[in-house]
């Protein structure tokens, strides 16, 4: 019993400066189906979602909605036509009531004199909420609701505009097990009414429980659309990661041999009380440990905790066998821990200052007297590291904002090398870096490890992990779920653990 497609995307292509985010993508959504959209981080899921929702206009291709070719001029137009997007970060007005939020996009009922009719608003919202089995009081303020309850408000809001298509972007990401069950019951109810649902999620068990079909995207391309009952987690993961082998970097990985029995860095049951828990990891001198996992799995938070940005709520950090307490980044730096953070521009660079100053910032006070900077020593240090890491810049006074991503990243790494750290934490070290500079950064990382540093690399880029990590931890929903070595380090195994595919 195949129902007609309510929405069809044909040959959609969308480019952003420098990247083709979607390339000739096809997608079909039928009335009353739950269609899962899966793919790695950066596969193009959110771009596709934004095209359906009218946020972006496609460069090529057509959108057919209810049998007609449409061109959304704005998200409002898509919404008014019955396409509702429920974002991962819910977009409700926290200080208004549930009823106001539910009816926000509609014409509010008004009296003859143009005044708002509150009784009417509240009763209409109540009807909508009751129709999806919720007994929330429409007069309650949204800020008093849990995330799960806010999601119900979002769904009621989608129904208030009589949505035919609802796109849910990782709706379960912040829900508990019970709440997810309730969400699924609600989705089934919507399905029975003929609403079509695009369900974006990384969690295999959910995809297999709720979806009818799934479409796999990889590197912006349509890979496959399958009936969920005809496939399994292994196959989906293979489709998600199955890259061309030529894309993978030439691995000049030297086999790593432990030189010491004491780990350089060890965490035992570490938890920040929020984003990750019970994290135990070891790092030996000269070793490169990779941490893999989906975006939002708690990887970056783990690194920030090791760097003293957040406090440990439970567990212990040991450096060379001795427990340490890190209260601030300064503490961490004093212990010889360095962090190259995830977002260069926001967390590391002083964009308006020179390349040189960005390199020497940690050593500014050194060798000077009474707070004065010794310029000769400073400039020598900057020249040395510029040469050592091959940073290409017109001069050391050039503002760092004018450098390419790769050279900016090298400057940040140089910054940390000036203090001769023992442990180097790298969060997405080659994000936004061109291919050539990527290779250079890898060889810098390998060289540093060879000189005895312990290095932890967090990366969403699987080929990157494969080409530099000696050992890999996989994080899922705030926990390390696997520790892989040698031949177990491959894309399929990592993705299976990262998505929880093995559980299903």
């Amino acid at each position, binding site marked *: 019993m195949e129902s007609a497609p309510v929405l069809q995307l044909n040959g959609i292509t969308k480019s952003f400066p420098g990247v083709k985010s979607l390339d000739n993508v096809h997608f079909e959504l039928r009335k009353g189906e739950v269609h899962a959209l899966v793919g790695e981080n950066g596969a193009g899921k959110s771009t596709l979602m934004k095209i359906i929702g009218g946020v972006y206009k496609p460069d090529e291709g057509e959108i057919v909605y209810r049998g007609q070719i449409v061109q959304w001029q704005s998200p409002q137009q898509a919404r008014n036509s019955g396409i509702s997007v429920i974002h991962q970060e819910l977009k409700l007005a926290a200080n208004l009531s549930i009823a106001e939020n539910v009816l926000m996009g509609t014409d509010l009922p008004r009296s003859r004199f143009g005044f708002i009719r509150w009784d009417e608003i509240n009763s209409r919202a109540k009807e909508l909420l009751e129709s999806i089995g919720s007994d929330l009081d429409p007069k309650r303020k949204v800020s008093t609701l849990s995330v799960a309850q806010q999601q119900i408000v979002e769904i009621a809001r989608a129904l208030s505009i009589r949505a035919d298509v609802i796109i849910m972007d990782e709706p379960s990401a912040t829900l508990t097990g019970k709440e997810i069950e309730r969400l699924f019951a609600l989705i089934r109810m919507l399905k029975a009414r003929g609403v079509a649902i695009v369900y974006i999620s990384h969690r295999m068990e959910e995809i297999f429980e709720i979806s009818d079909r799934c479409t796999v995207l990889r590197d912006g391309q349509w890979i496959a659309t399958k009936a969920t009952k005809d496939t399994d987690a292994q196959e989906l993961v293979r489709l998600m990661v199955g890259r061309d082998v030529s894309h993978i970097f030439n691995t000049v990985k030297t086999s790593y041999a432990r030189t010491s029995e004491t780990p350089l860095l060890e965490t035992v049951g570490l938890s920040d009380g929020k984003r990750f828990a019970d994290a135990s990891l070891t790092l030996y001198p000269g070793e490169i440990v990779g941490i893999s996992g989906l975006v939002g799995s708690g990887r970056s938070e783990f690194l920030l905790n090791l760097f003293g940005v957040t406090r440990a709520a439970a567990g212990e950090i040991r450096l060379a066998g001795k427990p340490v307490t890190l209260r601030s980044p*300064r503490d961490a730096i004093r212990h010889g821990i360095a962090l190259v953070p995830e977002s260069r521009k926001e967390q590391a660079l*002083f964009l*308006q200052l020179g390349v040189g100053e960005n390199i020497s*910032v940690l050593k*500014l006070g050194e060798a000077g007297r009474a*707070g004065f*900077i010794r310029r000769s020593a400073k400039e020598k240090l900057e020249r040395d590291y510029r040469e050592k890491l091959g940073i290409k810049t017109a001069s050391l006074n050039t503002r760092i*904002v004018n450098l390419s991503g790769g*050279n900016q990243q090298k400057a940040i790494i140089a910054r940390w090398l000036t203090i001769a750290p023992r442990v180097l934490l790298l969060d997405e070290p080659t994000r936004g870096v061109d291919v*050539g500079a990527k290779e250079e950064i890898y060889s810098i990382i390998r060289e540093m490890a060879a000189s005895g540093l312990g290095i932890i690399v967090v990366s969403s880029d699987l080929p990157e992990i494969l080409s530099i990590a000696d050992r890999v931890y996989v994080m899922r929903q705030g926990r390390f779920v696997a520790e892989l070595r040698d031949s177990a380090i491959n894309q399929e195994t990592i993705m299976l653990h990262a998505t929880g595919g093995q559980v299903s």
Partner: protein
Amino acid sequence: MSANSTSIESAAGKRSSPLRLSGMLDKMGIFVVVIFICVLFAVLDENFLTWSNMMNMTRQTAINAILAAGMTFVILTGGIDLSVGAIVALSGVTGVYFTQYLPAPAAILIGIAVGGVAGYINGFLTAKSRLPAIIVTLGSMTYLRGIAYVVTGGYPLILTNSTFKNLGQGYLGPVPIPIIIMILVYAVFFVVLKYTVFGRNVYMIGGNPEAAHLTGIKVVPRMTGVYTISGICAGIAGIILAGRLLSGQPNVGSGYELDAIAAVVLGGTSLSGGVGTIFGSLFGALFMGVLSNGLTLLSVPYYWQLIIKGIVIVMAIYVDRLRQKNART
């Protein structure tokens, strides 16, 4: 590989060349404008370009310039200090008050130190408790003014000490002492901002507070230091003003904070922090001084001067925003 990187390099180089020109204009901008209006007023009024008028004008500018010097540090960190006007009054009355009991140098130092302490408290509250600077200093602007009234009981305190008076009215050779103090302040601050770790950290904290924190820069003490500097500058300005007025008056200095902020922004310092120079602020202050001096010479009524000054300030903020847009692309 190397070919790849060089092409990126040259692309970046090409992109920055028009920016470099506007960057020059940024730095020179206010300087050029000051020269321009000086020439304009010199042509319009023969009295403008006389030594006595120049000295008079610069002396009147000195107080705003000194406040702007301290304010530059604060704005470079991305903050704001609304309390400097109140500190001018409090330091003045405190200094004059203590001349009754102590030798003048000690009384003067106490007056300045009171400004430093008030600034320290501003900085500590802003940095440690992460309250917005505008709220913290809005509060201190009010309570410090209150303290100034309490110290004097609401009346002016008459200043009789001649050393103290000289700071406001005296000359060193042909040059008024306030101008000499102003030049000293700017010379010291130029060195501090350019050649000390503290100074560079100020730019870093303002340019990217999160990166500053993640590179282990001592953000809280630095911020406290910055507001203390602003307080000390306001203290110095308060002493000079008391010397000039021959009395400590609790009601002086209101609105000075806004003139100082305007001078800093006119001088090219970005209100969002991280970008700016100390000499820019000096010329910003001079610009405002020249403007009101020239308009007065041309007998433009005071009310109209206010209107013109206000429009100029709004234009300055607008230019500031354009510049930031430029810097981002």
